[in-house]
């Protein structure tokens, strides 16, 4: 559906690349997870794909056709949920949705239905500026669905919500997949990614480290990982090491000999463990 080739982006000439040559493609009806720690370049990538930031270098294809300039057809087809809740504080939740709804060229969803869907129907006529952060986030999420988008960009839409609302949003996302919506889902929450995504891309320092389905990743790294917690200069250190990699096996021996080990686990690795293993970095 969407294919990205060698995308680069710098905010400033002197800065390093925020997006450093990434390539991936997302199949139609797929939920594609974009995972990485703070500052990895996730939001930057989403902003380039939604036309907020320019394409400095690289190519974007939509259904095999190169996009030179984002046009109305594209904006009519996409929905975007932002990391920061960006809504009109002086307008009510319903007015916010109705305003954005009036910008589309095709019939849109009813704002009342959307508000009900994200459990904001009680606050529909309250000024959005008086919403809590989680409510604003759900309003932004609802807004991204207003034009029944074929491609949906979600930047941290599930993070920061209380458990029941997180479940609510996740259910909506699963429902959207059933309707064949293509979803680009940015998060630094591995559990969310694990639960929702068909495939995930690990991104770190502007580069994609690997792309695979959560299932394959766990099969590949699965039980072959151990998590060792040990004391080092009074601090608790944590390392995730492979039981098949020679260097890692070496390291395990070294730690057991020289450090005071607190715990060793060889339980099934989570996506988070795998991420740390692959990138050497903790998630934010």
């Amino acid at each position: 559906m969407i294919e990205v080739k060698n995308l680069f982006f710098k905010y400033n000439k002197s800065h390093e690349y925020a997006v450093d040559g990434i390539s991936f493609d997302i199949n139609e009806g797929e939920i594609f997870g974009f995972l990485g720690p703070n500052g990895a370049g996730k939001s930057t990538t989403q902003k380039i794909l939604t036309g907020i930031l320019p394409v400095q270098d690289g190519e974007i294809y939509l259904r095999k056709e190169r996009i030179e300039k984002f046009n109305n057809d594209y904006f009519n087809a996409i929905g975007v949920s932002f990391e920061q809740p960006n809504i009109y504080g002086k307008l009510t939740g319903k007015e916010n949705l109705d305003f954005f709804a009036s910008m589309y060229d095709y019939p849109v969803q009813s704002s009342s239905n959307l508000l009900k869907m994200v459990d904001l129907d009680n606050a529909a006529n309250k000024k959005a500026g008086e919403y809590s952060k989680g409510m604003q986030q759900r309003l932004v999420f609802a807004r991204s669905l207003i034009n029944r988008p074929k491609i949906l960009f979600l930047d941290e839409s599930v993070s920061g919500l209380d458990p029941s609302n997180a479940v609510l949003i996740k259910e909506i996302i699963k429902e959207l997949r059933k309707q064949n919506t293509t979803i680009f889902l940015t998060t630094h929450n591995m559990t969310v990614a694990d639960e929702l995504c068909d495939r995930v891309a690990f991104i770190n320092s502007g580069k994609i480290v690997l792309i695979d389905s959560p299932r394959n990743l766990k099969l590949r790294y699965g039980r072959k990982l151990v998590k060792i917690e040990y004391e080092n200069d009074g601090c608790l250190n944590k390392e995730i090491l492979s039981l098949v990699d020679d260097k890692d096996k070496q390291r395990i021996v070294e730690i057991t000999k020289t450090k005071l080990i607190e715990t060793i686990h060889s339980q099934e690795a989570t996506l988070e463990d795998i991420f740390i293993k692959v990138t050497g970095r903790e998630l934010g």
Partner: protein
Amino acid sequence: MIKRIFFNFLKEVKIGWRGNYFLLTVGIAVFYIVFIQFLLPGFINQNTNVYIFTEIDFEIDYEDIRIEEFENVFFVNDLDELHSKLDKNRESFGIYISGTESNPKVELFIQGNEDEALKEVYKISILNSFGVLSENNFNKVYLNNKISSPIKMNNYMVPILLLTEAVMMGIIFVFTMIFTEKNEGTIYAYSVTPGKIFEYLLGKVLYLIFLGLIFTSVFCVPLFGFRVNYLELFLVIALGSFFSTSVSLIFASFYDNISQSLFSMLALNLILIAPMFSYLIPSFNPPIMRIIPTYGILFNLRNILFSDYGNLIYSDLLVILLEGIVFFLISSVLYNRMIKKK
């Protein structure tokens, strides 16, 4: 396109209403009405002099033509002296009496800055003192040919207030609107819809024109009633507002908050308001003033409000419209780029 412009406009009206901008606009208008009506004097110089040259040698009851507030009645010896006195004092007027006692001719020399009521009083009292009440004996002579009936000083200030408030209100409002939206990030949410940036900006322009017209109505109807051509007045205010809003959109695009932009905002205000000096001091009229687009707006407002100055100059309006369009197009380009930069 029209639909999206309309909904952008409607959004601004709602936000403006809730931000009490309408109340503020009406409040300022009411304040200026009070200011104009009660605090500004109708005339600065109350010592209007009256110069009389009479060729008829007979007793005039001077007391008849002396009015308490205006003590300064002078008799001069010939017509030349009368004219030179009038030249020296622009607020004075002259009376020239000729003919015969039974059929006197009274000529009133008017310069345009005198009180209308006062002239009536003089006219009646002079005719009275000859025992003649016929208008036929009375003749008004307008000096300098260009000015005629007087405009009270306080009313003369109205075009300036229309310029600073109705036309230039947009400046400060545009800055606050743009900064709020940059802060809220709503401009980015808008940019991922099919809505165009020019439609978004036009919504703001129309809203500020709307506010300007509200100010104009609330302000002018109580002061002038309906003897003003409001169609022309609204046209000039709308074009002026379009122009000043477009210019401020450009300026606002360079900044993120009020304190950063304070200097530019002030400078912009000062430049656009400068033609006021030419307006208040007619002899101060350097070409540079006439280049400032608000010059045309100010003087056309005067022409509409006070019938004695001539008509609305449509070529001025065309120039303002074209300038407005150019600045608006520039601002559209700038905002398109700004969104793609952040």
